[in-house]
């Protein structure tokens, strides 16, 4: 297909320099179509406009967003983990709880399955020149279930509540150093500005479904969310019973297309095995989140469909850089080189993962520099590095970790691999509570151990992974990695608004982390949702959210 420069010029006319630079990148072939759409959505360009640009650039339009509509009126039954605490938008922190919250309440924008940001309660957004102020335009005519219209005051109150350290907000760690209480300002009833502490090129993700606390609820909220379950979503609460389940009914006053299902039912399970049996026994239609090892029985079950999303969730293996035996980066690299990532992906994760390259830049991120070579198992080189570092005779060390998902099996595989380069690994596998401890330095096996494996959930952008576990002052810096060059690069990446600038920083960070290897990123695992055959239109996200408004049953 040829490029239509006349239309491209017309589109360019009303765009900011930043947006035009992105368009140029697409037209000149420096940026792929997929990366263009993802980054364009981050800058607030609408999906139809993005589609128009890709068509004019001769790369085809957007894939049709319209799904085949199923029959309306079904009751969709979902199995989920038990919410770990009371459902409260401010404090909620677990997959089971945020799944229920997200059924009734909505975000300004949604980080979709393909990491493309889609408008929800916000219609559009854009940054100022340096990315310190982001302006969001709100959708008009959106009603809360309790009746009032959602306006800027509600957005300001919802976000301020989360940024306030006095509120036990679980989103505080997302907003620290980015957005303070009082920095969310109403411009008019349908316009909100976020004044950031520092430039941030990925800010819209912080107020999207990527930050699961950031749902918009009425400004008047005073706590006791379980009494109202007030929100703007396509479903309204019917009944919630702690520890047992919840049910929802269609919201006839919804601002968008009305939901297809008449009702949805959520059943809570304390364990995965009964959930799998319930799906096989026909008592539920969907398992929201299924870890691959626990769900092996379903992967090849002809009566079950698996929705597989590329996520960037991973298990970080940290090596303490400030003390022996991992003080020398050559020893850290030797460990990384002993790991067989192909076997991790194919064997441990049954092919439902992507190999990691010892940086948070997963293949799924548009800013990842794919020209950086993938690290592969190389025992000979690993042995040479051990010799060069004066550790040729090997040593004994303890790997401390948590009993969670496939981590114990992962630890055993590492134990076998490092044996080949003379390292004797003793495994100390703890209950999750014991591993995390108080989660502050000096009182946590996680942050104090010489070597450990920690689970990290999915994020639509790598900002959190770049800062908290790797920056010198990072609050989750279990590797005790302190490197000024890295800090400068990470700050530069976080501030960059332009995709090509982000890519350039990403490449440098990837190379630096391969050299230093404070943390080994072995693989990024896929997010799996299991549905009974005949259930269609289910849309999960890798953040454990589940959008059911287009769901139907055959």
């Amino acid at each position, binding site marked *: 297909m040829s490029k239509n420069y006349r239309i491209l010029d017309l589109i360019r006319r009303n765009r900011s320099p930043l947006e035009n630079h992105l368009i140029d990148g697409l037209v000149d072939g420096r940026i792929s179509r997929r990366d263009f759409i993802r980054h364009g959505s981050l800058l607030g360009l609408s999906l139809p406009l993005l589609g128009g640009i890709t068509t004019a650039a001769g790369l085809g339009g957007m894939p049709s967003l319209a799904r085949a509509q199923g029959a309306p009126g079904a009751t969709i039954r979902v199995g989920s983990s*038990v919410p*770990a*605490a*009371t459902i*409260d938008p401010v*404090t909620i*922190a*677990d997959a089971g709880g945020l799944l229920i919250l997200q059924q009734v309440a909505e975000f300004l924008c949604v980080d979709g399955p393909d990491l493309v940001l889609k408008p929800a309660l916000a219609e559009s957004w854009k940054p100022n020149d340096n990315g310190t102020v982001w302006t969001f335009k709100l959708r008009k005519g959106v009603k809360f279930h309790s009746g009032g219209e959602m306006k800027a005051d509600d957005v300001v109150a919802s976000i301020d509540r989360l940024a306030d*350290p*006095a*509120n*036990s*907000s*679980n989103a*505080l*760690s997302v907003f*620290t150093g980015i957005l303070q209480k009082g920095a969310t300002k109403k411009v008019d009833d349908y316009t909100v500005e976020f004044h950031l502490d520092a430039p941030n090129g990925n800010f819209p993700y912080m107020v999207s479904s990527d930050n699961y606390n950031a749902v918009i609820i009425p400004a008047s909220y005073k706590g*006791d969310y379980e009494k109202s379950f007030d929100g703007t979503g396509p479903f309204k609460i019917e009944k919630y019973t*702690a*520890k*047992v*389940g919840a049910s929802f009914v269609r919201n006839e006053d919804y601002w968008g297309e009305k939901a297809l299902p008449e009702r949805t039912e959520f*059943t*809570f*399970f*304390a*364990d995965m*095995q*009964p959930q799998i*049996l*319930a799906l*096989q*026994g*026909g*008592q539920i239609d969907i398992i929201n989140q299924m870890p691959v090892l626990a769900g092996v029985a379903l992967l090849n079950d002809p009566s079950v469909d698996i929705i597989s999303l590329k996520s960037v969730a991973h298990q970080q293996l940290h090596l303490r850089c400030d003390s022996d035996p991992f003080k020398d980066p050559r020893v850290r690299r030797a460990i990384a080189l002993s790991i067989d990532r192909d076997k991790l992906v194919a064997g441990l994760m049954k092919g439902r993962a992507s190999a990691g390259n010892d940086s948070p830049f997963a293949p799924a991120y548009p800013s990842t520099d794919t020209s950086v070579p993938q690290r592969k198992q190389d025992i000979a080189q690993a042995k040479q590095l051990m010799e060069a570092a004066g550790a040729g005779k090997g040593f004994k060390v303890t790997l401390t970790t948590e009993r969670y998902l496939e981590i114990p099996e992962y630890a055993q595989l590492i134990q076998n691999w490092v044996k080949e380069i003379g390292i004797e690994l003793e495994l100390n596998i703890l*209950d999750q*509570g*014991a591993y*995390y*401890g*108080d*989660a*502050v330095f000096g009182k946590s096996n*996680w942050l104090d151990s010489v070597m450990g494996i920690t689970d990290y959930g999915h994020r639509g952008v790598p900002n959190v992974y770049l800062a*908290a576990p790797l920056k010198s002052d990072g*609050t*989750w810096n279990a590797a005790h990695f302190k490197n000024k060059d890295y800090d400068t690069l990470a700050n530069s990446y976080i501030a960059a608004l332009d995709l090509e600038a982000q890519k350039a920083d990403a490449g440098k960070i990837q190379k630096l982390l391969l050299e230093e290897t404070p943390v080994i990123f072995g693989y990024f695992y896929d997010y799996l949702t299991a549905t009974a055959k005949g259930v269609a239109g289910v849309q999960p996200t890798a953040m454990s959210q589940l959008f059911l408004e287009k769901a139907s049953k055959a």
Partner: protein
Amino acid sequence: MLSFFARRVSLSLVTLFLLSIMVFLGGQVLPGNVGRAILGPFADQRAVDALNHTLGVDRPLLTQYATWIWNFIRGDMGTSYIFRSPVAPFVIDALGNSMKLAAVAFVLVVPIGILGGVIAALNLNRPLDRIISLGGLSVTVLPEFVTGIILILIFGVWLRWLPISAAWPKNAGFFTQLYYLILPSVPLFLVLFGYIARMARSGMIEALDSDYTRTAVLKGLPWRTVIWRHVLRNALLPTITVIATQTGYLIGGLVVIETLFRYQGIGSLIFTAARGKDFPMLESGILTIGIVYAVATLIADFLYSVLNPRIRLGSDQ
């Protein structure tokens, strides 16, 4: 008789008091803290501190214990840290559910177990005895999650005859509830059958071999009368104690079955409370089980002393 029971009751109260202290201290040594457990490892420390302050867990331990136990004695189980609502309805509901499941299992296992033991003893060293004894022993050692999953697979997934979840629909009547309790009660039956049958069998063997049985037989009493009047009454004494001690297990220790069958019993309530460091729920739940256990033991003691006056008289001396 009265002083015997007064002594038993006061001993139970002391035990419960000690249990309350142990549970409280045990809860405190669990790693991590409440705010961290609720907000997760990745929450900002300021948020965790704020939540701990709101919940009152940053107060001195003695104050926390005194407040909790004083309120408990007055019938107030406190407010759940996790659910931010009163603990009592959770504990009462869960205890009621556990009792229902225990009752179904008991109604099945006690008569069948005793009958099995009696038949085995009357057929001592014959094939029937071996089948009951060895069969009972074999099913007793099968873990509940193994039998539970096998039953679910057969009756729930393949045949689809029985619901695989024990959580019955709201407003379910007696028979519907019973229907939902069939599958979860079978693994409990299997675990307890061998135990009760074995106790009944050994009690029977001992009674059959005793002088009073021999005397009764020599007196020329019909065999049936000997068994009913002389043997069974004495043989079942140890079985009663076993049944009483199993009450505690059935009410409080069914975490595996409750998790597998998604049943809202007190075992799973306590388990989730411990995981979430929900101390008011954990402490009140365990103390409640302690009370149930103490009451069951008292009832067993009472029955035992009624059936066997030597116990009562001996303890009075």
